[in-house]
């Protein structure tokens, strides 16, 4: 079937089987390899993307459900790896094999967008379904806290800039 949806801010029209999951559309039709195949059953979270702003397992979303949707993948999370999670992940050397990390980051980005200062319990609840076979969980948790810090200080400095601009005006 022919569908039109937005991927990382660009409208795409493609013709694929109605039951083809978004995961495989991204990987094989659109050649966006950042979203990973782990299980195909929503058991591991490696394929997590944002659909209309919410973290979603792309292996479970068929083409037929995509018309008009806005999809953001790890490739579209930020320009130049500037998202606080991408910064924190590098700073704390979070990845081991790295295969699950796109899914972890997309899940965590959803968490931070609704809860900018999550507790350990908030993180556990949000990240429960994202498996890391290398068990880099200590650093995933630390990375989310660090990203929250980075985002807070960036918000503070933006606010400061805004205040000082106002002052000049």
């Amino acid at each position, binding site marked *: 079937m022919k569908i039109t949806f937005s991927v990382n801010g660009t409208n795409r029209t493609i013709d694929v*089987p109605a*039951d*083809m*999951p978004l995961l*495989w559309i991204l*990987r*094989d*039709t659109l*050649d*966006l*390899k*950042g*979203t*990973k*195949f*782990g*299980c*195909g*059953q929503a*058991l*591991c979270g*490696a394929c997590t993307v944002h659909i209309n702003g919410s973290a979603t397992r792309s292996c479970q979303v068929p083409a037929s459900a995509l018309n008009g949707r806005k999809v953001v*993948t*790890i*490739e579209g*999370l930020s320009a130049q*790896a500037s998202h606080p*999670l*991408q910064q924190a*992940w*590098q*700073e704390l*050397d*979070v*990845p*081991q*094999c*790295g*295969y*699950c*990390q*796109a899914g972890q*980051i997309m899940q965590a980005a959803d968490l931070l967008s609704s809860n900018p200062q999550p507790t350990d319990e908030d*993180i*556990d609840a949000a*990240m*429960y379904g*994202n*498996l*890391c*076979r*290398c*068990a*880099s*969980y*200590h*650093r*995933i*948790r630390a990375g989310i806290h660090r990203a929250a810090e980075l985002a807070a200080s960036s918000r503070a400095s933006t606010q400061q800039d805004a205040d000082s601009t106002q002052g000049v005006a």
Partner: protein
Amino acid sequence: MSTPSPILARRDFLRVTAVAGGGMLLGTMVDFAGIGVVNAMEPAGEFMPNAFIRISGAGVITILAKNPEIGQGIRTMLPMLVAEELDVAWQQVIVEQAMSDEAKYGSQFAGGSMATPTNWEPLRRAGAAGRQMLVAVAAASWNVPVGECTTEAGVVHHESSRRRATYGELASRAATMTPPALDAVKLKDPKDFRIIGKSIPGVDNLKIVTGKPLFGIDVTVPGMLYAIFEKSPVFGARVASANVDEVRGLPGVKQAFVVEGTTNLSGLMPGVAILADSWWAARSARRQLRVTWEQHPTAQQSSAGFRARAKEFFAAAPQTVARQDGDVVTAFAAAAKVVEAEYEYPFLAHAPLEPQNCTASFANGKLEIWAPTQAPQGGRQLVAQTLGIKPEDIAIHMMRCGGGFGRRLLNDYMVEAAWIARQAGVPVKLVWSREDDTQHDFYRPAGFHKLKGAVDANGRITAWENHFATFGDGQRFAQAASISPNEFPISFIPNALFGVSQMPLGVPTGFLRAPTSNAIAFVYQSFIDELALAAGKDPVQFRLDLLDQGGIVAATPAAPASPVNAARMKGVLELVAEKSEWGKRKFPRGSGVGVGMHFSHRGYFAEVVEVNVSQRGEVKIVKVWVAGDVGSHIINPSGAMAQVQGSVLDGIAQAMKQEITIDGGRSVQTSLADYELLRITEVPPVEVHFRTTEFPPTGMGEPALPPVIPALASAIFMATGKRIRSLPLARHDLSWS
């Protein structure tokens, strides 16, 4: 005193180490012949003192990463060794993955935690050789003594004349020199290290967090088709018939055919290939595939059957005595206390998150392969043998692996892709489903042990007997199903017997992170705890006393692979006891601590686990303390910490809930729904301490795993009074009142 009886066990031990360690345990520590020296002059203008370094006239410094990256951090750590002695700043370095070419790079292998001990000296020498040549060129052009020149961050300095030259400026002249003999170059004094000992983040991190193609499964080759390969759930069964004609007509399907396969459980098994223009089309067509499999004798095998056979073995004498010291019969008769117990552990899967996959292109008699593999050279040999082509006609790109854990030491998926691509006549990307991955692993073999131990009136172990029921055909062990007769503590006990009985196995088995050790540490350390209890001694003190019994030649810096060095083991045991305040805390019923220690892969680790067990039997791990001794340097502390914590959590996952059950000759578990991985909610704090010793540094990928399992089991015993003699814990009712 010790008289190892080698016939049965030794042969397999040799075979296993040859696979897992490239012969390291048998060979020498440093093999300079393995490091290829290439012509320093090619290509023009670039300085290439050896296979690992390339410096362009523009000053671009490239270091080749020789080994497969599976998440152990080796693509970062090995180039650090080169960069240190080349004396460049890490920020200047571009790391490039080498192709599979052992003639050029030496052993390229991710297994046995071998990369650190085998490369520690050769790769630093490779870097030092480059530095020495650049300094020589600079000194000659300035007409000053070499000894007056210093280097830092890719620049040669002559202090008194205030002259300087970058490595890039010196490259073209250095390229005309003959490289020095590697064993003659001078290495830095470790106090001058600028990179070794610093936490360096993974070189691929930016690509990982931005989703760039990196892993085997991300490979795209022009004109390729996507393949699925269906095999019999009963291991090894051949295809009797399949509706491939019908499948060929399904949407997107380009080809479908039966692969006869071989009888090599580690090679090309029989199955049906479906090739389509997308993986989803192949996967959809597979739902319409109907295969009738031939009857296969493995269908008679089951975990329950193996357990029953082990019980029969235990009612009789072992088939073989692999080691016998002193006189156990007399020692048991004279003992103050005798303890007997049976232990067992299940088959385990590796479950890397990236399912097995491989891309292959066959043209004009030559094969090009892109594979996430831990053992490219083994894959090359398997493919060459199976397809009947020359090993040198196969080019292998080593792709980053989405986890290894030993699974990708065997290259079944590589030979499948190669075979299918040649038969199809087009490039093929084979991707397994999660179900394929769970049902066609090389499982950690199950094992059964009947133990008998004795302590004397002084609480000293005087006798130790183990009847090990495992898998094999009577001549050879099944893959990874042997255990060294010399595993600790047998060498420390005057009267000991290690007997083995084998039963046939049609289930593919292989090496899982810390192979052998991940099983035997649970059994032996738990049984040592049982003996400590019988002796009325504290479990830590009991182990320290046991280590003092000595009786073996200790490992030395010159021979670090010798059996357990008691002083190093005591060092980590005392350290972990101190850090966990062992013996100083009181625990109410329902909580407790346990200790375990193990020597494997040249590393010494002792670990303490604290648990709370609810009255309903739910286990919560409160904390884990780890003390490790892997020699003189922690090369990359960030990577080392990740490996230790990851290994400990891997062990916890195995102990808590992982099990592959065989029934009807197939794996009962089929996915991550019934073979569960650890979750973020199950992760305790893991506090890690390293004790540095004068021994050369050794690998971190495995040795921290084994001790946590018996430490956890012992903590549960303290908390509940229930002794864990089989795994996983999920099998046990741990409730108490």
